[in-house]
Protein backbone atom coordinates (compact mmCIF):
# COMPACT_ATOMS: atom_id res chain seq x y z
CA UNK A 1 0.00 0.00 0.00
CA UNK A 2 1.46 3.30 -1.05
CA UNK A 3 1.36 5.85 1.73
CA UNK A 4 2.55 9.28 0.79
CA UNK A 5 3.26 12.31 2.92
CA UNK A 6 -0.17 13.74 2.37
CA UNK A 7 -2.20 10.79 3.64
CA UNK A 8 0.20 9.95 6.47
CA UNK A 9 -1.06 12.59 8.98
CA UNK A 10 -4.63 11.51 8.26
CA UNK A 11 -3.84 7.89 9.03
CA UNK A 12 -1.92 8.79 12.18
CA UNK A 13 -4.81 10.94 13.33
CA UNK A 14 -7.32 8.17 12.64
CA UNK A 15 -5.25 5.69 14.64
CA UNK A 16 -4.93 8.16 17.52
CA UNK A 17 -8.71 8.65 17.62
CA UNK A 18 -9.30 4.90 17.54
CA UNK A 19 -6.82 4.33 20.38
CA UNK A 20 -8.48 7.09 22.39
CA UNK A 21 -11.96 5.58 21.91
CA UNK A 22 -11.15 1.93 22.29
CA UNK A 23 -8.28 1.71 24.79
CA UNK A 24 -10.55 1.59 27.88
CA UNK A 25 -12.50 -1.28 26.33
CA UNK A 26 -9.35 -3.07 25.22
CA UNK A 27 -7.86 -2.80 28.72
CA UNK A 28 -11.12 -4.03 30.27
CA UNK A 29 -11.31 -7.02 27.93
CA UNK A 30 -7.61 -7.81 28.33
CA UNK A 31 -7.78 -7.97 32.13
CA UNK A 32 -10.84 -10.19 32.04
CA UNK A 33 -8.29 -12.84 31.00
CA UNK A 34 -6.00 -11.98 33.93
CA UNK A 35 -4.35 -14.87 35.66
CA UNK A 36 -4.41 -13.34 39.11
CA UNK A 37 -6.62 -11.66 41.66
CA UNK A 38 -6.49 -8.05 40.45
CA UNK A 39 -7.37 -6.59 37.06
CA UNK A 40 -4.32 -4.33 37.08
CA UNK A 41 -0.93 -4.52 35.36
CA UNK A 42 1.16 -6.49 35.01
CA UNK A 43 -0.83 -8.88 32.81
CA UNK A 44 0.01 -12.36 34.00
CA UNK A 45 -1.01 -14.30 30.95
CA UNK A 46 -4.28 -15.50 29.60
CA UNK A 47 -6.65 -17.49 31.73
CA UNK A 48 -10.37 -18.26 31.57
CA UNK A 49 -10.73 -18.72 35.30
CA UNK A 50 -12.81 -15.56 35.82
CA UNK A 51 -15.22 -16.54 33.07
CA UNK A 52 -15.55 -19.90 34.76
CA UNK A 53 -16.23 -18.17 38.06
CA UNK A 54 -18.76 -15.91 36.39
CA UNK A 55 -20.72 -18.87 34.92
CA UNK A 56 -20.84 -20.29 38.44
CA UNK A 57 -22.12 -17.04 39.97
CA UNK A 58 -25.84 -17.69 40.36
CA UNK A 59 -26.81 -14.10 41.07
CA UNK A 60 -24.95 -12.93 37.99
CA UNK A 61 -26.56 -15.59 35.82
CA UNK A 62 -30.02 -14.62 37.14
CA UNK A 63 -29.24 -11.02 36.25
CA UNK A 64 -28.18 -12.17 32.79
CA UNK A 65 -31.55 -13.82 32.23
CA UNK A 66 -33.35 -10.75 33.64
CA UNK A 67 -31.42 -8.49 31.29
CA UNK A 68 -32.28 -10.65 28.31
CA UNK A 69 -35.98 -10.64 29.28
CA UNK A 70 -36.08 -6.87 29.75
CA UNK A 71 -34.13 -6.20 26.54
CA UNK A 72 -36.33 -8.46 24.41
CA UNK A 73 -39.60 -7.38 26.03
CA UNK A 74 -38.93 -3.64 26.01
CA UNK A 75 -37.40 -3.91 22.52
CA UNK A 76 -40.50 -5.56 21.09
CA UNK A 77 -42.91 -3.18 22.83
CA UNK A 78 -40.89 -0.05 21.90
CA UNK A 79 -40.63 -1.13 18.26
CA UNK A 80 -44.33 -1.92 18.05
CA UNK A 81 -45.46 1.33 19.69
CA UNK A 82 -42.88 3.36 17.74
CA UNK A 83 -44.14 1.79 14.52
CA UNK A 84 -47.78 2.57 15.33
CA UNK A 85 -46.92 6.18 16.16
CA UNK A 86 -44.86 6.57 12.97
CA UNK A 87 -47.52 4.95 10.83
CA UNK A 88 -50.30 7.08 12.28
CA UNK A 89 -48.33 10.27 11.90
CA UNK A 90 -47.16 9.47 8.37
CA UNK A 91 -50.68 8.61 7.21
CA UNK A 92 -52.50 11.57 8.70
CA UNK A 93 -50.64 14.67 7.65
CA UNK A 94 -51.96 17.77 9.36
CA UNK A 95 -50.62 21.08 10.51
CA UNK A 96 -49.81 19.44 13.86
CA UNK A 97 -47.63 16.74 12.31
CA UNK A 98 -44.30 18.44 12.92
CA UNK A 99 -45.23 19.50 16.46
CA UNK A 100 -46.28 15.95 17.34
CA UNK A 101 -43.10 14.64 15.81
CA UNK A 102 -41.08 17.06 17.90
CA UNK A 103 -42.96 16.06 21.06
CA UNK A 104 -42.40 12.38 20.38
CA UNK A 105 -38.70 12.78 19.73
CA UNK A 106 -37.65 15.34 22.34
CA UNK A 107 -37.41 12.79 25.22
CA UNK A 108 -34.25 11.61 23.41
CA UNK A 109 -32.53 14.69 24.81
CA UNK A 110 -33.70 14.25 28.41
CA UNK A 111 -31.23 12.75 30.87
CA UNK A 112 -31.89 9.14 31.90
CA UNK A 113 -31.53 10.23 35.52
CA UNK A 114 -34.44 12.66 35.19
CA UNK A 115 -36.57 10.09 33.38
CA UNK A 116 -35.65 7.51 36.03
CA UNK A 117 -36.57 9.72 38.97
CA UNK A 118 -39.78 10.78 37.21
CA UNK A 119 -40.68 7.14 36.61
CA UNK A 120 -39.88 6.25 40.21
CA UNK A 121 -42.38 8.84 41.45
CA UNK A 122 -45.02 8.05 38.81
CA UNK A 123 -44.87 4.28 39.26
CA UNK A 124 -45.05 4.74 43.01
CA UNK A 125 -48.13 6.93 42.55
CA UNK A 126 -49.98 4.42 40.42
CA UNK A 127 -48.86 1.54 42.60
CA UNK A 128 -46.47 -0.39 40.41
CA UNK A 129 -43.68 -1.73 42.65
CA UNK A 130 -39.99 -1.71 41.76
CA UNK A 131 -39.53 -4.79 39.62
CA UNK A 132 -38.31 -6.12 36.28
CA UNK A 133 -41.68 -5.04 34.89
CA UNK A 134 -41.03 -1.49 36.08
CA UNK A 135 -37.59 -1.53 34.46
CA UNK A 136 -39.23 -2.73 31.25
CA UNK A 137 -41.65 0.19 31.34
CA UNK A 138 -38.73 2.53 31.92
CA UNK A 139 -36.86 1.17 28.94
CA UNK A 140 -39.90 1.51 26.70
CA UNK A 141 -40.16 5.15 27.78
CA UNK A 142 -36.50 5.68 26.88
CA UNK A 143 -36.49 3.76 23.60
CA UNK A 144 -39.87 4.55 22.08
CA UNK A 145 -38.73 7.94 20.68
CA UNK A 146 -35.75 6.28 19.02
CA UNK A 147 -37.88 3.51 17.46
CA UNK A 148 -40.37 6.12 16.30
CA UNK A 149 -37.59 8.17 14.69
CA UNK A 150 -36.08 5.18 12.88
CA UNK A 151 -39.40 3.88 11.53
CA UNK A 152 -40.81 7.32 10.70
CA UNK A 153 -37.78 8.12 8.55
CA UNK A 154 -38.68 5.17 6.33
CA UNK A 155 -42.27 6.23 5.63
CA UNK A 156 -42.46 8.18 2.39
CA UNK A 157 -44.94 9.09 -0.29
CA UNK A 158 -43.94 6.06 -2.28
CA UNK A 159 -45.04 3.83 0.59
CA UNK A 160 -48.38 5.64 0.71
CA UNK A 161 -48.91 4.84 -2.97
CA UNK A 162 -47.91 1.22 -2.37
CA UNK A 163 -50.48 1.03 0.43
CA UNK A 164 -53.09 2.66 -1.80
CA UNK A 165 -52.29 0.19 -4.56
CA UNK A 166 -52.81 -2.70 -2.13
CA UNK A 167 -56.15 -1.28 -0.97
CA UNK A 168 -57.14 -0.62 -4.57
CA UNK A 169 -56.53 -4.30 -5.32
CA UNK A 170 -58.81 -5.30 -2.45
CA UNK A 171 -56.55 -5.60 0.59
CA UNK A 172 -58.08 -4.78 4.00
CA UNK A 173 -56.23 -3.30 7.01
CA UNK A 174 -54.96 -6.68 8.13
CA UNK A 175 -53.60 -7.62 4.71
CA UNK A 176 -52.13 -4.17 4.12
CA UNK A 177 -50.20 -4.49 7.36
CA UNK A 178 -49.03 -8.10 7.27
CA UNK A 179 -48.57 -8.62 3.52
CA UNK A 180 -47.34 -5.20 2.46
CA UNK A 181 -46.24 -2.66 5.08
CA UNK A 182 -44.53 -4.93 7.60
CA UNK A 183 -42.48 -6.88 5.00
CA UNK A 184 -41.37 -3.64 3.32
CA UNK A 185 -40.55 -2.04 6.67
CA UNK A 186 -38.86 -5.16 8.01
CA UNK A 187 -35.29 -3.80 7.89
CA UNK A 188 -36.31 -0.63 9.75
CA UNK A 189 -38.33 -2.60 12.31
CA UNK A 190 -35.44 -5.01 12.91
CA UNK A 191 -32.96 -2.13 13.19
CA UNK A 192 -35.24 -0.34 15.67
CA UNK A 193 -35.61 -3.54 17.67
CA UNK A 194 -31.86 -4.28 17.74
CA UNK A 195 -30.99 -0.73 18.81
CA UNK A 196 -33.62 -0.50 21.53
CA UNK A 197 -32.79 -3.98 22.84
CA UNK A 198 -29.10 -2.98 22.97
CA UNK A 199 -29.79 0.27 24.78
CA UNK A 200 -31.98 -1.60 27.28
CA UNK A 201 -29.29 -4.26 27.73
CA UNK A 202 -26.67 -1.59 28.52
CA UNK A 203 -28.83 0.73 30.55
CA UNK A 204 -27.88 1.30 34.18
CA UNK A 205 -29.48 4.36 35.80
CA UNK A 206 -33.16 3.58 35.19
CA UNK A 207 -32.59 -0.12 35.95
CA UNK A 208 -30.79 0.80 39.16
CA UNK A 209 -33.54 3.19 40.31
CA UNK A 210 -36.42 0.85 39.47
CA UNK A 211 -35.03 -2.49 40.70
CA UNK A 212 -35.15 -4.10 44.10
CA UNK A 213 -34.68 -7.87 44.20
CA UNK A 214 -34.52 -8.74 40.55
CA UNK A 215 -31.68 -6.82 38.96
CA UNK A 216 -30.17 -6.56 35.51
CA UNK A 217 -26.53 -7.11 34.50
CA UNK A 218 -25.35 -3.48 34.64
CA UNK A 219 -26.81 -3.18 38.15
CA UNK A 220 -25.11 -6.33 39.40
CA UNK A 221 -21.82 -5.26 37.83
CA UNK A 222 -22.12 -2.01 39.74
CA UNK A 223 -22.77 -3.94 42.97
CA UNK A 224 -19.76 -6.17 42.34
CA UNK A 225 -17.61 -3.08 41.75
CA UNK A 226 -18.66 -1.67 45.11
CA UNK A 227 -17.55 -4.89 46.76
CA UNK A 228 -14.14 -4.64 45.15
CA UNK A 229 -12.25 -4.80 41.92
CA UNK A 230 -11.86 -8.32 40.55
CA UNK A 231 -11.29 -9.64 37.02
CA UNK A 232 -14.75 -11.21 37.32
CA UNK A 233 -16.24 -7.73 36.87
CA UNK A 234 -14.15 -7.42 33.72
CA UNK A 235 -15.43 -10.77 32.48
CA UNK A 236 -19.08 -9.78 33.06
CA UNK A 237 -18.51 -6.40 31.43
CA UNK A 238 -16.81 -8.05 28.47
CA UNK A 239 -19.86 -10.24 27.99
CA UNK A 240 -22.19 -7.19 28.10
CA UNK A 241 -19.95 -5.38 25.63
CA UNK A 242 -19.70 -8.32 23.22
CA UNK A 243 -23.46 -8.79 23.08
CA UNK A 244 -24.06 -5.04 22.62
CA UNK A 245 -21.63 -4.90 19.72
CA UNK A 246 -23.30 -7.87 18.09
CA UNK A 247 -26.74 -6.27 18.33
CA UNK A 248 -25.52 -2.90 17.04
CA UNK A 249 -23.75 -4.72 14.19
CA UNK A 250 -27.02 -6.45 13.31
CA UNK A 251 -28.92 -3.16 13.40
CA UNK A 252 -26.34 -1.58 11.08
CA UNK A 253 -26.58 -4.56 8.74
CA UNK A 254 -30.37 -4.20 8.56
CA UNK A 255 -30.12 -0.48 7.84
CA UNK A 256 -27.52 -1.05 5.13
CA UNK A 257 -29.54 -3.86 3.55
CA UNK A 258 -32.42 -1.43 3.31
CA UNK A 259 -30.31 1.15 1.50
CA UNK A 260 -28.97 -1.42 -0.92
CA UNK A 261 -32.39 -1.94 -2.46
Amino acid at each position, binding site marked *: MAMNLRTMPTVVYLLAVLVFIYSPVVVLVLFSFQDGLLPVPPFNGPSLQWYQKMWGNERLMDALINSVLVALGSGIVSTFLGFLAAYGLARNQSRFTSSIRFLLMSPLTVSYLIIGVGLLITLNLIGIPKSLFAIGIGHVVINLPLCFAIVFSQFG*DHLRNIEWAARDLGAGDFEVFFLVIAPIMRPALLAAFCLSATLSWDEFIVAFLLSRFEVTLPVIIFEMLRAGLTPEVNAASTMVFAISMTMVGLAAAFIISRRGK
Partner: protein
Amino acid sequence: MNKYHLELRGVSKEYAGFVAVESVDLKVARGEFLVLLGPSGSGKTTILSMMGGFTVPTTGHMYIDGHDVTETTPAHRPTATVFQDYALFPHMSVLQNVSFGLTMRKVSKPLRHQRAETALETMGLSGLGDREIHQLSGGQRQRVALARAIAVEPEVLLLDEPLGALDQKIRRQMQVELVRLQKTLGVTFVHVTHDQEEAMSIADNIALINKGRIEDYGPPDRIYLRPATLFAATFMGDSNIFSGEVVGNQADWVEIKTQTGNLRIAGSQEIGTSVHIMLRPEQIKVGSSESSDTFSMGVVRIVDVTFQGTHRLCRALGGADETVEFLLRLPPEHAVSPSDCLSIYALMSDVVLLTR
Protein backbone atom coordinates in the same frame (compact mmCIF):
# COMPACT_ATOMS: atom_id res chain seq x y z
CA MET B 1 -77.30 -0.04 -19.12
CA ASN B 2 -76.44 3.57 -18.48
CA LYS B 3 -75.37 5.77 -21.28
CA TYR B 4 -72.33 6.95 -19.36
CA HIS B 5 -69.97 4.62 -17.61
CA LEU B 6 -68.40 7.15 -15.31
CA GLU B 7 -69.98 10.42 -14.37
CA LEU B 8 -68.91 13.31 -12.15
CA ARG B 9 -71.52 15.83 -11.09
CA GLY B 10 -70.42 19.09 -9.50
CA VAL B 11 -67.39 17.47 -7.88
CA SER B 12 -65.18 19.76 -5.79
CA LYS B 13 -62.26 19.16 -3.51
CA GLU B 14 -61.11 21.72 -1.02
CA TYR B 15 -58.09 21.55 1.21
CA ALA B 16 -57.55 23.97 4.07
CA GLY B 17 -57.94 27.31 2.37
CA PHE B 18 -57.34 26.07 -1.14
CA VAL B 19 -59.63 24.69 -3.82
CA ALA B 20 -57.96 21.89 -5.77
CA VAL B 21 -60.95 20.98 -7.89
CA GLU B 22 -63.93 23.23 -8.47
CA SER B 23 -67.34 21.84 -9.47
CA VAL B 24 -66.25 19.52 -12.22
CA ASP B 25 -68.85 17.82 -14.42
CA LEU B 26 -67.58 15.02 -16.57
CA LYS B 27 -69.17 12.18 -18.49
CA VAL B 28 -67.17 9.25 -19.76
CA ALA B 29 -68.74 6.74 -22.12
CA ARG B 30 -68.16 3.01 -21.77
CA GLY B 31 -64.97 2.01 -23.56
CA GLU B 32 -63.82 5.60 -23.97
CA PHE B 33 -60.20 6.71 -23.67
CA LEU B 34 -60.38 9.98 -21.77
CA VAL B 35 -57.27 12.03 -21.09
CA LEU B 36 -57.18 14.56 -18.28
CA LEU B 37 -54.64 17.05 -19.57
CA GLY B 38 -53.30 20.02 -17.69
CA PRO B 39 -50.25 21.74 -16.22
CA SER B 40 -48.87 20.53 -12.90
CA GLY B 41 -50.98 21.67 -9.97
CA SER B 42 -54.09 21.99 -12.14
CA GLY B 43 -56.01 19.41 -10.10
CA LYS B 44 -56.02 16.63 -12.70
CA THR B 45 -54.41 14.09 -10.36
CA THR B 46 -56.88 15.01 -7.61
CA ILE B 47 -59.75 14.29 -10.01
CA LEU B 48 -58.22 10.90 -10.83
CA SER B 49 -57.66 10.19 -7.15
CA MET B 50 -61.35 10.91 -6.48
CA MET B 51 -62.31 8.57 -9.32
CA GLY B 52 -60.18 5.86 -7.71
CA GLY B 53 -61.69 6.47 -4.28
CA PHE B 54 -58.46 7.59 -2.59
CA THR B 55 -59.72 11.13 -2.11
CA VAL B 56 -63.28 11.88 -1.06
CA PRO B 57 -64.81 14.94 -2.76
CA THR B 58 -65.82 17.84 -0.54
CA THR B 59 -69.02 18.27 -2.53
CA GLY B 60 -70.59 16.63 -5.56
CA HIS B 61 -71.25 13.07 -6.59
CA MET B 62 -69.61 10.40 -8.65
CA TYR B 63 -71.37 7.59 -10.47
CA ILE B 64 -70.12 4.42 -12.05
CA ASP B 65 -72.71 2.68 -14.19
CA GLY B 66 -75.36 4.83 -12.56
CA HIS B 67 -74.42 3.80 -9.02
CA ASP B 68 -73.35 6.51 -6.61
CA VAL B 69 -69.78 5.60 -5.62
CA THR B 70 -68.85 8.93 -4.02
CA GLU B 71 -68.16 7.29 -0.64
CA THR B 72 -67.16 3.84 -1.89
CA THR B 73 -63.68 2.64 -0.91
CA PRO B 74 -61.14 1.83 -3.64
CA ALA B 75 -61.46 -1.90 -2.96
CA HIS B 76 -65.19 -1.84 -3.67
CA ARG B 77 -65.02 0.17 -6.88
CA PRO B 78 -64.71 -1.51 -10.27
CA THR B 79 -61.66 0.68 -10.88
CA ALA B 80 -57.95 -0.04 -10.82
CA THR B 81 -55.24 2.60 -10.63
CA VAL B 82 -51.79 2.62 -12.18
CA PHE B 83 -49.69 4.99 -10.09
CA GLN B 84 -47.13 7.43 -11.37
CA ASP B 85 -44.33 5.75 -9.40
CA TYR B 86 -45.88 2.34 -10.23
CA ALA B 87 -46.21 1.52 -6.49
CA LEU B 88 -45.10 -2.07 -7.07
CA PHE B 89 -44.59 -4.26 -4.02
CA PRO B 90 -40.78 -4.39 -3.80
CA HIS B 91 -40.69 -7.53 -1.66
CA MET B 92 -42.70 -9.65 -4.08
CA SER B 93 -41.83 -11.25 -7.40
CA VAL B 94 -43.41 -10.02 -10.62
CA LEU B 95 -45.95 -12.86 -10.58
CA GLN B 96 -46.84 -12.21 -6.91
CA ASN B 97 -47.36 -8.54 -7.72
CA VAL B 98 -49.62 -9.29 -10.64
CA SER B 99 -51.65 -11.90 -8.78
CA PHE B 100 -51.99 -9.81 -5.57
CA GLY B 101 -55.43 -8.48 -6.48
CA LEU B 102 -56.61 -11.99 -7.30
CA THR B 103 -55.23 -13.32 -4.02
CA MET B 104 -57.22 -10.62 -2.21
CA ARG B 105 -60.31 -11.72 -4.15
CA LYS B 106 -59.73 -15.28 -2.93
CA VAL B 107 -59.36 -16.64 -6.46
CA SER B 108 -58.13 -20.24 -6.31
CA LYS B 109 -54.41 -20.69 -6.83
CA PRO B 110 -54.43 -22.40 -10.26
CA LEU B 111 -56.90 -19.87 -11.67
CA ARG B 112 -55.03 -16.99 -10.10
CA HIS B 113 -51.82 -18.22 -11.63
CA GLN B 114 -53.42 -18.58 -15.02
CA ARG B 115 -54.99 -15.13 -14.99
CA ALA B 116 -51.77 -13.49 -13.80
CA GLU B 117 -49.85 -15.23 -16.58
CA THR B 118 -52.42 -14.02 -19.11
CA ALA B 119 -52.04 -10.44 -17.86
CA LEU B 120 -48.24 -10.74 -18.07
CA GLU B 121 -48.55 -12.11 -21.59
CA THR B 122 -50.83 -9.23 -22.61
CA MET B 123 -48.16 -6.81 -21.43
CA GLY B 124 -45.38 -8.70 -23.20
CA LEU B 125 -43.82 -9.95 -19.98
CA SER B 126 -44.13 -13.70 -20.48
CA GLY B 127 -41.42 -15.58 -18.64
CA LEU B 128 -40.55 -12.70 -16.31
CA GLY B 129 -42.88 -13.86 -13.52
CA ASP B 130 -40.05 -15.05 -11.28
CA ARG B 131 -38.05 -11.83 -11.50
CA GLU B 132 -37.69 -9.49 -8.57
CA ILE B 133 -38.92 -5.93 -9.05
CA HIS B 134 -35.47 -4.39 -8.57
CA GLN B 135 -34.16 -6.49 -11.46
CA LEU B 136 -36.50 -4.80 -13.94
CA SER B 137 -35.99 -1.74 -16.13
CA GLY B 138 -38.27 1.28 -15.85
CA GLY B 139 -40.25 0.24 -18.90
CA GLN B 140 -40.72 -3.28 -17.55
CA ARG B 141 -41.88 -1.96 -14.18
CA GLN B 142 -44.43 0.14 -16.00
CA ARG B 143 -45.71 -2.99 -17.73
CA VAL B 144 -45.87 -4.91 -14.47
CA ALA B 145 -47.92 -2.09 -12.94
CA LEU B 146 -50.31 -2.28 -15.90
CA ALA B 147 -50.45 -6.08 -15.75
CA ARG B 148 -51.23 -5.93 -12.02
CA ALA B 149 -54.08 -3.51 -12.67
CA ILE B 150 -55.65 -5.37 -15.60
CA ALA B 151 -55.33 -8.76 -13.85
CA VAL B 152 -58.31 -7.87 -11.63
CA GLU B 153 -60.32 -7.09 -14.78
CA PRO B 154 -61.42 -3.58 -13.80
CA GLU B 155 -64.20 -1.77 -15.66
CA VAL B 156 -62.36 1.52 -15.45
CA LEU B 157 -58.58 1.79 -15.56
CA LEU B 158 -57.15 4.96 -14.04
CA LEU B 159 -53.64 5.95 -15.10
CA ASP B 160 -51.75 8.68 -13.24
CA GLU B 161 -49.01 10.00 -15.56
CA PRO B 162 -47.93 6.41 -16.15
CA LEU B 163 -45.41 7.29 -18.84
CA GLY B 164 -43.85 10.27 -17.07
CA ALA B 165 -40.69 8.49 -15.96
CA LEU B 166 -39.95 6.75 -19.26
CA ASP B 167 -37.58 8.02 -21.92
CA GLN B 168 -38.96 9.44 -25.15
CA LYS B 169 -38.66 6.33 -27.32
CA ILE B 170 -40.30 3.94 -24.84
CA ARG B 171 -42.95 6.57 -24.17
CA ARG B 172 -43.99 6.64 -27.83
CA GLN B 173 -44.07 2.87 -27.94
CA MET B 174 -46.13 2.68 -24.73
CA GLN B 175 -48.62 5.26 -26.03
CA VAL B 176 -49.33 3.01 -29.01
CA GLU B 177 -49.57 0.00 -26.72
CA LEU B 178 -51.95 1.73 -24.32
CA VAL B 179 -54.34 2.50 -27.15
CA ARG B 180 -54.06 -1.06 -28.46
CA LEU B 181 -54.62 -2.43 -24.93
CA GLN B 182 -57.63 -0.21 -24.38
CA LYS B 183 -59.24 -1.25 -27.67
CA THR B 184 -58.55 -4.95 -27.00
CA LEU B 185 -59.88 -4.94 -23.46
CA GLY B 186 -62.76 -2.59 -24.23
CA VAL B 187 -62.19 -1.04 -20.80
CA THR B 188 -62.81 2.64 -20.04
CA PHE B 189 -59.45 4.42 -19.59
CA VAL B 190 -58.89 7.68 -17.76
CA HIS B 191 -55.32 8.83 -18.25
CA VAL B 192 -53.68 11.84 -16.60
CA THR B 193 -50.83 13.65 -18.33
CA HIS B 194 -49.30 17.09 -18.73
CA ASP B 195 -47.94 16.25 -22.19
CA GLN B 196 -50.29 17.61 -24.86
CA GLU B 197 -48.69 15.56 -27.63
CA GLU B 198 -49.24 12.39 -25.63
CA ALA B 199 -52.83 13.43 -24.95
CA MET B 200 -53.54 14.09 -28.62
CA SER B 201 -52.03 10.81 -29.78
CA ILE B 202 -53.99 8.54 -27.40
CA ALA B 203 -57.24 10.24 -26.41
CA ASP B 204 -60.77 9.76 -27.71
CA ASN B 205 -61.62 12.83 -25.70
CA ILE B 206 -59.48 15.32 -23.83
CA ALA B 207 -60.60 17.19 -20.74
CA LEU B 208 -58.25 20.13 -20.44
CA ILE B 209 -57.91 21.05 -16.77
CA ASN B 210 -56.70 24.39 -15.51
CA LYS B 211 -56.91 25.74 -11.95
CA GLY B 212 -59.24 22.96 -10.85
CA ARG B 213 -61.75 23.51 -13.64
CA ILE B 214 -62.42 21.95 -17.02
CA GLU B 215 -61.18 24.54 -19.49
CA ASP B 216 -62.12 22.64 -22.63
CA TYR B 217 -63.51 19.22 -23.43
CA GLY B 218 -63.70 17.35 -26.70
CA PRO B 219 -61.88 15.22 -29.24
CA PRO B 220 -58.17 16.09 -29.71
CA ASP B 221 -58.53 17.50 -33.24
CA ARG B 222 -61.33 19.81 -32.19
CA ILE B 223 -59.42 21.07 -29.18
CA TYR B 224 -56.28 21.59 -31.24
CA LEU B 225 -57.93 23.24 -34.21
CA ARG B 226 -60.74 25.12 -32.51
CA PRO B 227 -59.79 25.62 -28.85
CA ALA B 228 -62.52 27.11 -26.69
CA THR B 229 -60.36 29.45 -24.64
CA LEU B 230 -57.11 31.36 -24.77
CA PHE B 231 -55.60 28.92 -22.27
CA ALA B 232 -56.60 25.93 -24.41
CA ALA B 233 -55.11 27.60 -27.47
CA THR B 234 -51.75 28.24 -25.82
CA PHE B 235 -51.54 24.93 -23.95
CA MET B 236 -52.25 22.73 -26.97
CA GLY B 237 -49.05 23.30 -28.90
CA ASP B 238 -47.57 26.23 -30.79
CA SER B 239 -49.88 28.99 -31.85
CA ASN B 240 -50.07 32.51 -33.22
CA ILE B 241 -52.33 34.62 -31.06
CA PHE B 242 -53.16 38.20 -31.99
CA SER B 243 -55.20 40.58 -29.95
CA GLY B 244 -57.86 42.57 -31.73
CA GLU B 245 -61.10 44.45 -31.41
CA VAL B 246 -64.50 43.93 -32.99
CA VAL B 247 -65.12 46.90 -35.28
CA GLY B 248 -68.14 45.71 -37.20
CA ASN B 249 -70.74 42.96 -37.17
CA GLN B 250 -73.45 41.51 -39.33
CA ALA B 251 -75.83 38.61 -38.92
CA ASP B 252 -73.24 35.84 -39.10
CA TRP B 253 -69.83 37.51 -39.24
CA VAL B 254 -67.74 40.00 -37.38
CA GLU B 255 -65.01 42.29 -38.57
CA ILE B 256 -61.96 42.34 -36.38
CA LYS B 257 -59.23 44.91 -36.41
CA THR B 258 -55.77 43.47 -35.61
CA GLN B 259 -52.23 44.73 -35.88
CA THR B 260 -51.89 42.92 -39.20
CA GLY B 261 -55.02 44.31 -40.78
CA ASN B 262 -58.74 43.75 -40.66
CA LEU B 263 -60.45 40.47 -41.27
CA ARG B 264 -63.96 39.09 -41.36
CA ILE B 265 -64.76 35.80 -39.76
CA ALA B 266 -67.85 33.89 -38.75
CA GLY B 267 -69.22 34.66 -35.34
CA SER B 268 -71.20 37.26 -33.48
CA GLN B 269 -69.80 39.75 -31.00
CA GLU B 270 -70.65 43.26 -29.86
CA ILE B 271 -68.72 46.09 -31.46
CA GLY B 272 -65.89 47.20 -29.20
CA THR B 273 -65.29 43.78 -27.61
CA SER B 274 -61.62 42.95 -27.29
CA VAL B 275 -60.87 39.47 -28.55
CA HIS B 276 -57.99 37.25 -29.58
CA ILE B 277 -57.64 35.38 -32.81
CA MET B 278 -55.55 32.26 -33.19
CA LEU B 279 -53.84 30.50 -36.06
CA ARG B 280 -51.67 27.40 -35.80
CA PRO B 281 -48.18 27.91 -37.32
CA GLU B 282 -48.92 25.46 -40.15
CA GLN B 283 -52.06 27.40 -41.07
CA ILE B 284 -50.06 30.42 -42.16
CA LYS B 285 -49.11 30.06 -45.82
CA VAL B 286 -46.53 31.79 -47.97
CA GLY B 287 -47.75 33.69 -51.05
CA SER B 288 -50.34 36.30 -51.81
CA SER B 289 -53.99 36.04 -50.91
CA GLU B 290 -55.90 35.68 -54.16
CA SER B 291 -59.23 34.11 -53.33
CA SER B 292 -62.14 35.46 -51.36
CA ASP B 293 -61.86 32.88 -48.57
CA THR B 294 -58.29 33.87 -47.69
CA PHE B 295 -56.84 37.05 -46.27
CA SER B 296 -53.41 38.62 -46.48
CA MET B 297 -51.31 39.14 -43.35
CA GLY B 298 -48.77 41.38 -45.05
CA VAL B 299 -45.04 40.85 -45.36
CA VAL B 300 -42.92 39.36 -42.59
CA ARG B 301 -39.18 39.23 -42.09
CA ILE B 302 -37.71 35.90 -40.93
CA VAL B 303 -35.79 36.19 -37.64
CA ASP B 304 -34.65 32.63 -37.12
CA VAL B 305 -35.20 29.20 -38.63
CA THR B 306 -35.01 25.76 -37.01
CA PHE B 307 -34.95 22.79 -39.33
CA GLN B 308 -36.98 19.99 -37.72
CA GLY B 309 -37.07 17.35 -40.44
CA THR B 310 -40.78 17.36 -41.23
CA HIS B 311 -40.86 21.14 -41.37
CA ARG B 312 -38.94 24.35 -40.83
CA LEU B 313 -40.04 26.27 -37.75
CA CYS B 314 -39.55 30.00 -38.35
CA ARG B 315 -39.92 32.97 -36.12
CA ALA B 316 -40.77 36.12 -38.07
CA LEU B 317 -41.73 39.73 -37.43
CA GLY B 318 -44.47 41.55 -39.27
CA GLY B 319 -47.28 44.06 -38.95
CA ALA B 320 -46.72 47.78 -38.70
CA ASP B 321 -43.12 48.53 -37.58
CA GLU B 322 -42.42 44.79 -37.33
CA THR B 323 -43.90 44.61 -33.85
CA VAL B 324 -45.95 41.44 -34.28
CA GLU B 325 -44.29 38.07 -33.86
CA PHE B 326 -45.29 35.16 -36.10
CA LEU B 327 -44.56 31.49 -35.84
CA LEU B 328 -44.52 29.69 -39.19
CA ARG B 329 -44.14 26.06 -40.09
CA LEU B 330 -42.81 25.92 -43.62
CA PRO B 331 -42.43 22.75 -45.68
CA PRO B 332 -38.89 21.30 -45.49
CA GLU B 333 -38.29 21.89 -49.21
CA HIS B 334 -38.94 25.61 -48.76
CA ALA B 335 -35.45 26.89 -47.96
CA VAL B 336 -35.48 30.18 -46.08
CA SER B 337 -32.85 32.06 -44.16
CA PRO B 338 -33.00 34.82 -41.57
CA SER B 339 -33.81 38.30 -42.91
CA ASP B 340 -35.70 36.88 -45.92
CA CYS B 341 -38.98 38.65 -46.47
CA LEU B 342 -42.16 36.69 -47.27
CA SER B 343 -45.75 37.55 -48.06
CA ILE B 344 -48.11 35.48 -45.95
CA TYR B 345 -51.82 34.70 -45.89
CA ALA B 346 -54.25 32.36 -44.19
CA LEU B 347 -57.67 30.81 -44.70
CA MET B 348 -60.53 32.70 -43.11
CA SER B 349 -62.01 29.42 -41.95
CA ASP B 350 -58.82 28.50 -40.05
CA VAL B 351 -59.02 31.53 -37.81
CA VAL B 352 -60.27 30.84 -34.30
CA LEU B 353 -62.00 33.64 -32.45
CA LEU B 354 -61.24 33.52 -28.73
CA THR B 355 -63.30 35.55 -26.35
CA ARG B 356 -62.23 33.97 -23.04
